[in-house]
């Protein structure tokens, strides 16, 4: 579909070129703004505090890894601890959300029993509940039961809040899978559990990956429940540790930036390594959820 096919005049062509330049410029400025903080933080983290304060956007006059060395060697900052906590919390939460979501979603989709509808409605309610109305009461409940401030504390709310969407994604995915498959397996003598894990689970792999992607980001980034449920600095997850850290070094921007980059690195590397799949998964989760 060449422009000549439309019999365009020279004037219109120039107009189009001009339009194209504007459109491209806007999109490029937008894209650059999205990674500017990452780039700015990276080269600024190689500066010393006084170098940064003298020139906040300039390149480092004498790049140094001092900030990184200090952060990683000083245990009082709890940066390394917080990363271990976040990794553990995220992996366990995501694994259990995917498994629970799969099992509950499958049962709700395929098994007729009393209470099926009620469980469905309960999960639906969980999706509609404004999460932050639970912030204070969940603290009270966890405090009373002694479940707060433990290494496993955050797993409970993360799994509970992640489960409804996981169940719904599995449920809607199974709608597209013919039931004949399971019936055939059942005739061949496969029990419920065998069918569930050996036949259905491999089929659900794509949607389980989608759930895992969405929940990995949700759990890694979650802040408010970690804030109210964890007291010991040794248990803090990354976002929480960062609020402590910035409070401590509020005027030392290069150091804050270095700490941010270190703690962001797992998620950033994952994102840029698998961005196509991650975007696909996140978008699929929204559109089908």
């Amino acid at each position, binding site marked *: *579909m060449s422009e000549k096919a439309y019999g*365009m005049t020279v004037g219109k062509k120039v*107009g*189009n070129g001009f339009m194209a330049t504007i*459109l*491209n410029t806007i*999109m*490029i400025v*937008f*894209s650059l703004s*999205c990674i500017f903080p*990452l780039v*700015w933080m990276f080269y600024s983290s190689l500066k010393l505090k006084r170098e940064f304060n003298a020139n*906040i*956007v300039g390149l480092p006059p004498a790049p140094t890894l001092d900030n990184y060395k200090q952060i990683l060697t000083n245990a009082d900052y709890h940066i390394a601890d917080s990363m271990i906590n976040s990794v553990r919390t995220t992996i366990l939460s995501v694994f259990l959300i995917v498994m*629970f979501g799969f099992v*509950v979603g499958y*049962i709700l989709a*395929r098994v*007729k029993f009393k209470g099926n509808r009620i*469980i469905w409605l*309960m*999960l639906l309610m*969980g999706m509609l*509940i*404004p999460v*932050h*109305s*639970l*912030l*204070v*009461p*969940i603290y*009270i409940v966890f405090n009373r039961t002694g479940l707060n401030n433990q290494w496993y504390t955050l797993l*409970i709310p993360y799994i*509970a*809040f992640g*489960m409804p969407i996981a169940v719904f994604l599995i449920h809607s995915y199974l709608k597209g899978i013919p039931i004949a498959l*399971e019936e055939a397996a*059942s005739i061949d003598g496969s029990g419920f559990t065998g069918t569930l894990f050996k036949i259905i689970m491999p089929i659900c792999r794509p949607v389980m990956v989608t759930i895992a992607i969405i929940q990995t*980001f949700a759990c890694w*980034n979650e*802040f*408010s429940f970690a*804030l109210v449920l964890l007291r010991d600095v040794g248990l803090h997850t*990354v*976002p929480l540790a*960062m*609020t402590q850290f*910035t409070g401590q070094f509020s005027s030392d*921007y290069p150091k804050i930036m270095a700490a941010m980059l270190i703690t962001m690195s797992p*998620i*950033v590397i994952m*994102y840029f390594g698998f*961005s196509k799949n*991650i975007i696909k998964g*996140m*978008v699929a989760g*929204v*559109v089908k959820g």
Partner: protein
Amino acid sequence: MLTRRPPLRVIIGYLMIPLALYIFAVFIPLMTAAFYSLFEWKGGPNKTFIGVANYVTLIKDKVFWLSFSHNLYLILLCVIGQVGIAFVFVMMINTRSVKLKSIHRTFGFFPSTIAAVYVGFIWTMIYDSRRGVLNWLLALIGRDDLKQVWLNNSDLVMTLVSIPLIWQYIGYYMLILLSATSSIDKEIFESAELDGANAVQRSIHIVLPMIKSTIIVCLVLCVSGNMKVFDNIFVMTSGGPGNDSMVMAMYGYKISFIQQNMGYGSAISVGIFVLGLLVIGAMQLFSNKFSKD
């Protein structure tokens, strides 16, 4: 549904743990909030039953309603800023003249994957009065007179805290809308680019109706997302100056954990719950009506 139902005890066995966990983390706290909201309770061992007094206070509490209005203001700005700009970008990216499409997708989506806390930090640094990029830019273009301590400006603070939110999620909604437009015939976009004015009309009259259901999904997400905004505000302003950037979740947190007023904090939680459901309900009504047209 399976014709040969597995034994009930198998089903119960599978459902028990996930559902117990779910009820414990969602429904028990809700009931707890309803219970403690009837007490004067500072978090210690003593509490006094005061009936609905906390709710009477809540209804008269100007700060609570101010916070709610701030949530609504954020919703308004973000519907326009996030979904609106995302739609415009989608129309632009779908024209033939825009290059580097896959870069725009990858970079644009990136901010939505990082923690709101980090976005808050980044923008606090940008707004910083002495070391911030914003004041540096103003100095660069010779407008030193506009330089200020941005987040202390009562009139601007709500708009300033909304900018990071908008910036973070434009790419997110852009990708959702892009996936919706991917099934539309390319010629609609390509012929639209021939004439600027025509392109706008086509966007509104042809493309918009075709992706209506996805737009509604985006609006629902955007509204519910902004009802629960907390992390950014906590990091950037903690609701200040005064209460000028207070939002509901932040207010509930402040009353409960900083002032240690757990009884009233519970009442606020119930308030957030009710208002949240009302807003989402209104949203559902709107979208049902909208999708019938």
